[in-house]
């Protein structure tokens, strides 16, 4: 590995805390990922990306900035990355997914709050995220009360542009969201100093669609029994999709899919044929949060889809490519993004319909609905999920957890009992 310490230092990272994080990550990654059997060879690229998560990619961002480019950070799949790309910027997903900087975060946040929010605040205040430190602007949204209010605090440390995501999906809400996307375009243009043209936006839409199509192709391949790839590996790819270089990532996912198609033809898989197939639904699992998938897949089951923001919600819809003008394209983008089934909407029937149809398509034996502690939208919505799945006689296990590891054994007990129950059906 190249020596990145100078770069980290110049970004103002707290090197001591950062070293601690960098020391933990390879061990965790080794036990969660490298211990898997029959992994596709194409995962080598994604292993490399993780090994360079704070290295090569950060270097690329610095090179981009040195050439006059801008880096914009975001936390939510509602932030339209096509627009940033069309203005010559790079959008990256910001760090979370691990207990870090808790002491600093609790100086500005209440102790009992969503671990994702506490984590990103900890990353920023603890100066341990080189992505955060590479951004001159962060884009927030109003998808939950916790994030919405936390962005006010975050704005003390880095400029935050907040997009107002509506809470319903009526015509007037669509109009609001369109105006938010239009404002975002203007902000990004001003920030990057680049005008978004019909040509650049069309290309950005095509590039991003190509990325989403590659992810869709990967997910289609998971319909097969035996599953050609593990859920953990797919989650990793979905996590990486948020910050990797778009064309390179797309090419690598497609190359992996080529390999998986051969596997499917040969009947090869990562789990035995007939292994219990589960859908994971719920709150996003930001890198390096792999706890629950690891428990599930080391208990003999295989995950065949993630109905999550780090999953299907990120890539299930495409932006139409045939629009002519910037205005039409912005409208198409706004429409595409408002189709995401986030629990911040009321009602959110689209999500229930999606889980039910997905269970059929993926020939799933059951669903695990996993929610972060203190996440009201998803915790309350678990009732709607339960009701919808009961109506369709689809087994469901609801889990509530955080980024700590101390409940792994309890989660394992419940997952094992759930699998036992599925076996008895």
């Amino acid at each position, binding site marked *: 590995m190249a020596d990145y310490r100078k770069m980290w230092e110049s970004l103002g990272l707290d090197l001591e805390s950062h070293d601690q994080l960098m020391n933990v990550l390879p061990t965790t990654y080794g036990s969660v990922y490298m211990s898997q059997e029959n992994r596709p060879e194409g995962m080598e690229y994604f292993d490399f990306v993780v090994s360079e998560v704070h290295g090569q990619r950060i270097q690329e961002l610095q090179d981009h900035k040195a050439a006059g480019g801008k880096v914009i950070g975001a936390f939510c799949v509602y932030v339209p990355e096509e627009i940033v790309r069309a203005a010559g910027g790079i959008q990256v997903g910001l760090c979370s997914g691990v207990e870090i900087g808790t002491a600093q975060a609790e100086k500005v946040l209440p102790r009992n709050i969503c671990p994702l929010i506490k984590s990103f605040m900890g990353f920023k205040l603890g100066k341990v995220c080189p992505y955060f430190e590479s951004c001159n602007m962060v884009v927030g949204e109003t998808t939950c009360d916790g994030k919405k209010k936390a962005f006010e605090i975050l704005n003390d440390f880095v400029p935050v542009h907040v997009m107002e995501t509506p809470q319903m999906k009526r015509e007037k809400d669509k109009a609001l969201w369109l105006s938010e996307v239009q404002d975002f375009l203007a902000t990004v243009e001003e920030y990057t100093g680049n005008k978004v043209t019909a040509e650049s936006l069309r290309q950005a839409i095509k590039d991003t669609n190509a990325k989403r199509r590659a992810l869709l192709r990967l997910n289609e391949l998971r319909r097969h029994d035996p599953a050609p790839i593990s859920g953990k590996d797919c989650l990793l790819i979905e996590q990486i999709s948020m910050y990797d270089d778009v064309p390179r990532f797309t090419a690598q996912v497609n190359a992996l899919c080529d390999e998986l198609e051969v596997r499917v033809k040969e009947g090869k898989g990562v789990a035995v044929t007939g292994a219990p197939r589960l859908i994971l639904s719920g709150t996003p699992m930001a890198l390096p949060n792999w706890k629950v998938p690891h428990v599930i897949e080391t208990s003999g089951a295989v995950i065949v889809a993630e109905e999550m923001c780090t999953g299907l919600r990120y890539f299930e819809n495409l932006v139409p490519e045939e629009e002519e003008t910037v205005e039409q394209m912005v409208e198409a983008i706004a429409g595409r993004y408002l189709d995401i089934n986030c629990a911040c909407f009321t009602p959110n029937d689209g999500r229930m319909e999606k889980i039910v149809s997905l269970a059929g398509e993926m020939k799933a034996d059951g669903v695990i609905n996993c929610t972060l502690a203190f996440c009201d939208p998803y915790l309350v919505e678990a009732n709607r999920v339960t009701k919808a799945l009961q109506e369709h006689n689809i087994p469901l296990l609801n889990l*509530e957890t955080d980024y700590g590891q101390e409940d792994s*054994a*309890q989660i394992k*007990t419940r997952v094992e009992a759930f699998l036992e129950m599925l076996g008895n059906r």
Partner: protein
Amino acid sequence: MFAGIDLGSRSVKIALMEKDRPPRLQKYDTMEFYRAHGKKVSGKFMLDVAGTGLPGAGAGITATGYGRHSVKVRGARVIPEIKAHMLGAIHLTSLADFTLLDLGGQDSKVALVRGGRMVDFMTNDKCAASTGRYLENMAAALNISLVELSRHYRSPVELASTCAIFGESELIGKVVEGYSIPALAAGVNHSIFKRILPMLNRLISKTIVFTGGVAYSEALRLIIAEKTGAQVVVPENPEYAGAIGCCVEAMR
């Protein structure tokens, strides 16, 4: 000879079984057991059960319990916890259709059993409320034994918290208000019941098989029977259901 070992949070239970003979049972304090029989081997905590009455580090050991994945028992096969408890309960009661209620040292489990198979289940979250640990802490706060605590169920004091930690402050508040020990003890027992009632309501049967160390509590047995209207069956040696279930699984 089959050996079952249940690595609980508070105690390690061992059952030795042969076909058509009553099981031999042994119990150890978890911390003492780990200190006496465990050591770290290439980064993993290994338990060597030779010298504990188990048939050595050979074949035939089946393990379950809270520590089943973090602790390696030499030569043991690991089975899921709720399955082990269910198999043990079936073996001990000869019942096939019931609700299993297992209240252990640090967790609580409810499973719906039909035709000898588990069809649904619930457990507590990462919290020791409504478990043996809560009872231990409350008995200590009242300065009475667990046996004494388990005698009282009449005219309970209303307690809101079943937290193994914060329950104590509430209890002390009630002591200061002048309630009697029997009323306070009854309050503790009723508060556990309130905490498990939602789980029981969802998975209720005509018969509840009550296992785990907490099943020794006569007060809880009576409260559960009275409030749910179900028949409460507590097998002999209820805290060995998991270890016995391990043997049952191995004998199948």
